[in-house]
């Protein structure tokens, strides 16, 4: 009988095609993209990642994300993360904190966390569409304490260089008062004297106190190195963390200086390099979150401190246009977004001024990244919109204000936080021109089905991932 044979062959062929198709959709042709969420401490990394995940899972508030607005987006799901040795980013806990009966901001991050979000969509690009009608993009995100980011520039500094820079910075206001105790101790020790563990521990303790004081300070001080002194993570009480900068020239073997240098180098090799190569060396896209408003609150000193910290922290990343040889030589970051976070703390008509200010703040970093060939953009965003813009009258003038519940209070207030000039950071000749307040998360998010309300999160996603989702 011929026809059944033919049919069998046909069936086998169909099965083969189906199986091949399963293989394709089951993992071989899935695309991975690592999004680097970088930002100094209190820039809002954790809330950003949480809001991003929630919005992609629910996809109800993303009109500017092309794949969603054109109806090609199918769904997103959380999947097991690729690196089994990294703790999971506990998105459910953070969401519960933000949307629970008593909404509050998540605790500052103390350790690293990773998350994989898989997006299924129908491709628009012709070649991709013929290869696979439904494509999958795995989005890997890492969250970590912002303090650690400032360890990265140490990779390029020797102990002597780092000591010089740190001492110089510590002697300048507003840090000179905070560092008085530690610098007093420095004056009494001789770096050339034989090394003693007790001295080293004393110095490290005083230096750590100084760093803690910087972190607590009213002026938002960003440049705090090394980050593990504040957030030790798994290295708590290790000898690696008992060193501090020392003045003067390099000293001989067996001296205090040599001990400190040895530990500094060990810190770099064991802690910083590991952190960098595991989490930052393979990034495809990067978003740099910057708490511009916090820096504005603390005046020109805070601004310049943040600018310096930002530029230093961006140095180690490999930016450049993506090429087809990248699989051989390692990837480069080909799109960088600088985002001024917490844009909901100002009225909506100020977003443009905020963005201009951010442009000025990152102009050097931006042009050097562009020079390397990567695309750069700036935006004013808010991962979670806590306020609304209202109009109030004051002495015959209509003022655009924000309304929300400030942290520590239970009633909403209307705040006029001061207006950012379009072409300057501070209005000339005014003391304390700004009063940006931190607001609580809104309390009506428990039954939100469209995703957390945000400002321009969708546009940020479109810039960062839009071309992957074509």
């Amino acid at each position, binding site marked *: 009988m011929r026809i059944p044979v033919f049919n069998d062959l046909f069936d086998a062929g169909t099965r083969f095609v189906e199986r091949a198709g399963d293989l394709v959709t089951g993992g071989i042709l899935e695309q991975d993209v690592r999004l680097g969420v970088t930002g100094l401490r209190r820039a809002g990394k954790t809330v950003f990642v949480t809001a991003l995940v929630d919005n992609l899972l629910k996809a109800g508030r993303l009109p500017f994300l092309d794949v969603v607005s054109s109806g090609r987006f199918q769904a997103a799901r959380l999947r097991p993360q690729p690196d089994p040795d990294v703790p999971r980013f506990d998105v459910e806990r953070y969401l519960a904190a933000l949307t629970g009966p008593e909404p509050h901001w998540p605790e500052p991050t103390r350790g690293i966390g990773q998350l994989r979000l898989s997006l299924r969509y129908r491709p628009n690009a012709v070649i991709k569409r013929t290869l696979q009608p439904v494509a999958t993009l795995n989005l890997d995100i890492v969250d970590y304490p912002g303090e650690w980011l400032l360890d990265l520039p140490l990779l390029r500094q020797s102990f002597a260089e780092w000591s010089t820079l740190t001492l110089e910075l510590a002697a300048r206001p507003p840090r000179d008062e905070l560092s008085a105790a530690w610098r007093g101790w420095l004056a009494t020790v001789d770096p050339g004297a034989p090394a003693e563990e007790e001295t080293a521990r004393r110095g490290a303790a005083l230096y750590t106190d100084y760093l803690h004081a910087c972190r607590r300070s009213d002026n938002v001080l960003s440049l705090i190195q090394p980050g593990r002194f504040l957030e030790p993570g798994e290295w708590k009480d290790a000898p690696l963390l008992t060193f501090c900068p020392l003045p003067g020239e390099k000293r001989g073997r067996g001296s205090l200086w040599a001990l400190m240098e040895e530990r500094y180098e060990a810190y770099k090799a064991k802690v910083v390099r590991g952190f960098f190569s595991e989490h930052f060396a393979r990034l495809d896209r990067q978003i740099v979150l910057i708490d511009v408003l916090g820096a504005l609150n603390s005046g020109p000193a805070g601004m310049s401190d943040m600018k310096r910290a930002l530029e230093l922290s961006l140095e180690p990343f490999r930016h450049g246009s993506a090429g087809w040889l990248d699989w051989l030589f390692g990837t480069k970051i080909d799109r960088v977004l600088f985002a001024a976070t917490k844009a909901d703390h100002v009225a*909506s008509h100020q*977003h443009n001024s905020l963005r201009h200010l951010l442009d000025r703040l990152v102009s050097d970093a931006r042009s050097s990244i562009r020079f390397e060939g990567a695309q750069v953009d700036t935006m004013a965003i808010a991962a979670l*919109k806590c306020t609304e813009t209202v109009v109030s009258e004051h002495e015959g003038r209509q003022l655009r204000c924000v309304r929300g519940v400030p942290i520590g209070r239970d009633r909403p207030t*209307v705040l*006029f936080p001061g207006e950012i000039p379009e072409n300057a950071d501070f209005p000339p000749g005014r003391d304390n021109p*700004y*009063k940006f307040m931190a607001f609580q998360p809104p309390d009506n998010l428990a039954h939100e089905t469209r995703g957390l309300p945000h400002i321009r999160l969708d546009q940020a996603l479109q810039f960062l991932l839009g071309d992957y989702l074509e």
Partner: protein
Amino acid sequence: MTDSRTREAEWVPPMELDPGRAAPVPAAEEEAIIAGTAPRTAGERLPALLAVDDRPKSRVGRWLVGAVAALVLVALGFDTWDLLNRSFATSVALGALVASLAVVAGGAAVAMLVGELRSLRRLRRIEALRQEAERLSGAVEPGEADRFAGSLTRLYAGRTDLAPSLERVKDHVTDAHDDHEVVRLLDREVMAPLDSRAYQMVLRASRDTAVATALSPAAVVDLAVVLWRNLKLVREIAALYGARPGYVGSLKLLRRMLANIAVAGVAESAHHVAVEALGGSLAAAISTRMGQGVINGLLTARVGVTAMHLCRPIAFGAENRPSLGQIRKELLSLPKQVL
């Protein structure tokens, strides 16, 4: 926005204000306007138009047009009067017939004029909307985009096919979006589906024209087909976007259409010459006909794309500008389909 000096003079220190006295004005205003309930005068709604339209017009030209129109009317009146007199002189029945014809003609002309004027009023709104959209793309003044959205919503109020997109825009717009973003959102959510439908219309029309002119035996048929299909296309597109093209736009379209008709005529006549020159074989005849069809199709597509440009309330941006590329590809594959 006020300039920096006045702003400095009115500088207000940061402070907290009484929550009871704050009005969520933007949101409420937005709601009212997007729902289309806030009545506004033309000047208030469209401040841009008044400023833009003050370019000096040629007075002599206007006199000329007016005088010629009056002359034609007078001549027409004389002729009609003459005609009526003569027909009544011949017989009363003929006179009555001619008189009723004249009345019908006059009435129809008036009705057409009224219709034209009404569509013109609508069209004005489209042009004003366009200018407004263009201005908002650069401006940062808050609140005006809501008015723009309101005007657009009123324009498309009766359109059930657009109701879901308008509803979506209303859902998505928050108090945090600036004007540029609102316009972009309207562009993406409301205009983009219309664009793709208009593009399909253009594609269909150009294919029709191409096939019809390729198969038609006589130049007159070509002309008629091109004229009819072009007019129909423009009407379809105008109906889709809910507005007719303006004076200037109409002239531009008319010129394009006349050029198409001329090309259709010339191509048909040239066809014979070309076939002669190529040796009169069947292949030559077919290929010149095909070429002719493709040319006519492309020209029709050009009229269609121009009409899209002229009828769209928000001008096309750099990234969503309709291109002839797709249509050209489609038309070049046409000979294969027909043969």
